[in-house]
């Protein structure tokens, strides 16, 4: 670089050199504003919120340092413990069911069905629309006055009860079911892409050996798409931790506080209860949860691509 610059200095008069300099800097100048904005967004905002989480802020942000007190307050709080327990419970069911259903749908679609694109379109459309919108519809479907319960009763089964959202013990299942409804199509899309990339020679060889369809899937196809399972699980976990609109539109955290989630509780603490420091601490806990999921995944991905590079090199 310097050698090149020296040469231009020697050969060209003053003005073109200035232009060369400028063009050398253009890319950096162009990208600088975006970098600064992203840097502020990622690091300054996180640091700022972290600092607020160590302050005595209540209704308004204040910058008096009180150490980890908001975190102790948070973890002493019953509602936060419930939110976290809800998140764990929800994540476990949601990730497993959505992934398995997605896999099932992908395998079924991969069996050379007619109208494949119609099915794919149907299973994926929930993802295109906001939960804020579809949640309102599901709220009705779960409600006893007019939804599924009403339908079954009007068909003659008069003591049928189906009241997920109004029962504090069952409301979480309404959230799980709706979450699965929304995201399993996404799992399907990823699995389907994986199934299509499986080496067909391997499958044919297994067929010639007389292996049953089930055995081929279990021994040949599924092992070769194992990385996709991990990718799907990581993405779904990320969705789970960020779950907010779904709960707000479906149950608003209720009945009572039964379906309180970390994301909704942060909102509540910061903007309804004037507990900004504790709310900030809760949002930092959300970030921690995401890091627990994503950092190992990122390390694993890097490790895998390094290994592959070495294998081929």
């Amino acid at each position, binding site marked *: 670089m310097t050698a090149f610059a020296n040469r231009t200095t020697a050969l060209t008069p003053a003005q073109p050199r200035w232009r060369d300099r400028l063009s050398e800097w253009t890319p950096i100048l162009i990208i600088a504003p975006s970098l600064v904005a992203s840097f502020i*967004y990622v690091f300054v905002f996180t640091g700022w919120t972290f600092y607020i989480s160590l302050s005595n802020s209540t209704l308004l942000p204040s910058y008096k340092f009180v150490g980890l007190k908001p975190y102790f307050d948070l973890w002493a709080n019953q509602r936060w413990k419930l939110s976290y327990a809800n998140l764990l419970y929800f994540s476990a069911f949601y990730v497993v069911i959505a992934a398995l259903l997605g896999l099932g749908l992908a395998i079924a679609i991969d069996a050379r069905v007619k109208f494949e694109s119609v099915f794919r379109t149907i299973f*994926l459309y929930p993802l295109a629309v906001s939960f804020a919108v579809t*949640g309102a519809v599901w709220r009705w*479907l779960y409600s006893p006055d007019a*939804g599924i319960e009403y339908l079954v009763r009007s068909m003659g089964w008069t003591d049928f009860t189906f009241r997920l959202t109004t029962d504090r013990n069952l409301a979480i299942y309404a959230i799980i079911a709706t979450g699965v409804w929304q995201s399993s199509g*996404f799992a399907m899309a990823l699995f389907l892409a994986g199934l299509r990339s499986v080496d067909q020679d391997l499958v044919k060889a297994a067929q010639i050996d007389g292996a049953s369809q089930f055995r081929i899937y279990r021994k040949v196809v599924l092992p070769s798409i194992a990385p996709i399972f991990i990718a799907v699980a990581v993405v779904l976990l990320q969705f789970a931790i*960020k779950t907010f*609109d779904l709960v707000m539109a479906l149950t608003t955290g209720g009945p009572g506080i039964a379906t309180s989630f970390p994301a909704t509780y942060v*909102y509540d603490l910061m903007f309804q209860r004037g507990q900004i420091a504790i709310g900030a601490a809760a949002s930092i806990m959300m970030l921690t949860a995401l890091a627990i999921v994503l950092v190992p995944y990122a390390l694993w991905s890097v490790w895998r691509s390094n290994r592959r590079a070495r294998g081929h090199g």
Partner: protein
Amino acid sequence: MVDIAFDADFAASVRTERRRYVLGRIGVYAFLGFFAIIYLLPLFVIVANAFRELPEITQNGLIAFPRSFSFKAWPTAWSHFCVAGTCEGVKRNFYNSLLMTIPATIVSTVLGAVNGYVLSKWRFRGSEFLFGCMTLGVFMPGQIALMPWAYILGSLHLSNSVYGLVLVHCVQGLSFTTLFCRNYYINIPDDLIKAARIDGAGFWRIFVKIVLPLSPPILIVTVIWQFTGIWNEYLFGVVFTGGQQQPITAAVVAMATAVMNAKAYDVTSAAVLIAALPPLLIYFFGGKYFVRGLTQGAVK
């Protein structure tokens, strides 16, 4: 004799194979059909009820074949219904959403394309590291940014304003758009760029003459991703704006969760459909690109 027995055996095994195959097919279609019905149920309910009359809905329930037909709910939902104290329907909120989504989509896509171009074809020392830092923004939960944004929007006099949301979405969208475009441009052969540089083309000339003509697929993916993402966003909308300034997602949630509106199924259905229509249309017409964005954006 032997041949005949063999043939009979063979025919029998073909028959069982055949029966197995047919049963398998029925099973596959039944499985897909069952879930297709469940998946479509909410869409059916919302479309059907937006065109039914309220007394008929209350009588037959939400999940029923429509026995009445009317457009009455639409004008009410659009311009007369009461949301959060004012009775102007969701018209304003719909415009707010457009006013927020279109500029934020354009700005973040343009910046993302240029950033992706720099980070793939004009790398400088540390650019890979900076790119890594930028992509961290993809994973940040919105909750972390709430207090800082509230302060910044307040000091820019942009709180409770659609323009504030445009700023929020531009900054938040940068990480996505840059990630998309950079990962796409990295596959453009460097030799192409080098050849153009030797011919004397500069930074912008190469971008306009070589990179942009190759970009339509990724730009469509990015625009669709940004548009649907920003249109559907709820958290920032509900936190930073209120009442008449809210985007439509926040208005619809306010409408659907208000106790006094609990029974206005027809009007709420129409409002929900209005809110869902832009992303749904994009999805049905640009589904291929939507899925591509989804698989790229989510896994990376």
